[in-house]
């Protein structure tokens, strides 16, 4: 038997947010672009309250320092060989004859390639 009762769509699931999403005004406050007093609505103030707590926690992390033993541990584990700049690596010595011979060779190769292409 076919049930002909019209299908009733399920009620939309309402997503309950306890705080409204951060509006552009709240984002601007968090970016330091406007004072908190500039937040006009109660919703914005409510969101700002949550962010004040998060910021407070984040700021406490900003006071963290590298444990003292870590610095000495890093220093003691550095390799003995000091870093050498790329420029300090001596290049292979070049003499005048080698440079001239290299130049002539390049010109000859170019001439041969040109000749073959023309043919």
């Amino acid at each position: 038997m076919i049930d002909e009762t019209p299908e009733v769509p399920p009620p939309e699931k309402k997503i309950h947010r306890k705080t409204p999403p951060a509006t552009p005004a709240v984002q601007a406050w968090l970016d330091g672009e406007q004072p908190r007093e500039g937040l006009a609505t109660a919703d914005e103030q409510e969101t700002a309250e949550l962010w004040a707590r998060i910021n407070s926690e984040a700021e406490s992390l900003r006071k963290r320092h590298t444990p003292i033993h870590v610095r000495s541990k890093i220093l003691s584990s550095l390799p003995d060989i000091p870093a050498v700049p790329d420029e300090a690596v001596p290049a292979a010595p070049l003499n005048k004859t080698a440079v001239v011979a290299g130049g002539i060779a390049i010109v000859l190769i170019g001439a041969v390639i040109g000749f073959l292409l023309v043919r």
Partner: protein
Amino acid sequence: MPTTAPATAAAPPVDQADADQEIIARVLAGSKDAFGILIQRYSDPLYRHALGMTGSPDVAEDILQASFIKAYQHLGEVRGRFDAWVFRIVANACKDWLKNIRRTHVSYEEDDQPSSFSTPEEEMDRNELRTDLEYALNRLPESLREAFVMKHVEGRSYEEMAELLETTVGALKMRVHRAREALQALLEEKYA
């Protein structure tokens, strides 16, 4: 409670960058101890970045150590600001760690920093928020987490972030805004 957003950390002054170059020259000339000055100067912000990104003091220490050793070994390749260059080494190491590790739980354990709270209840609330914040941060994509940590935990300006990450202020603002939306959604059930 602050009425404005947190103040941002200033970029190193130009003369400090010059001073860094002098120290680098000394290290390259063979003075290993001179490298200690650079470690002293930059380890705190780099440690905080690694801690913010990984959530683990032990991992942050390891990343810091490996990064400074790498920096020492490649010091001759520094072009421009040393602090920006070494930051990128640390930032990449953090991203690699996040990609490779499957974590079940990490937290700001071994917190030996002095507490400013007078009552055990306040301390307990704070620890809970810290744990939940870390939980929420772990759920953010790396790029959003990085942007949020640099802005809110390290207190950097967008301009400084853009210089360090080699991207635009607009792109970073977008990432930070998206990170806030995501974190708020994760945290509000409990704290709103």
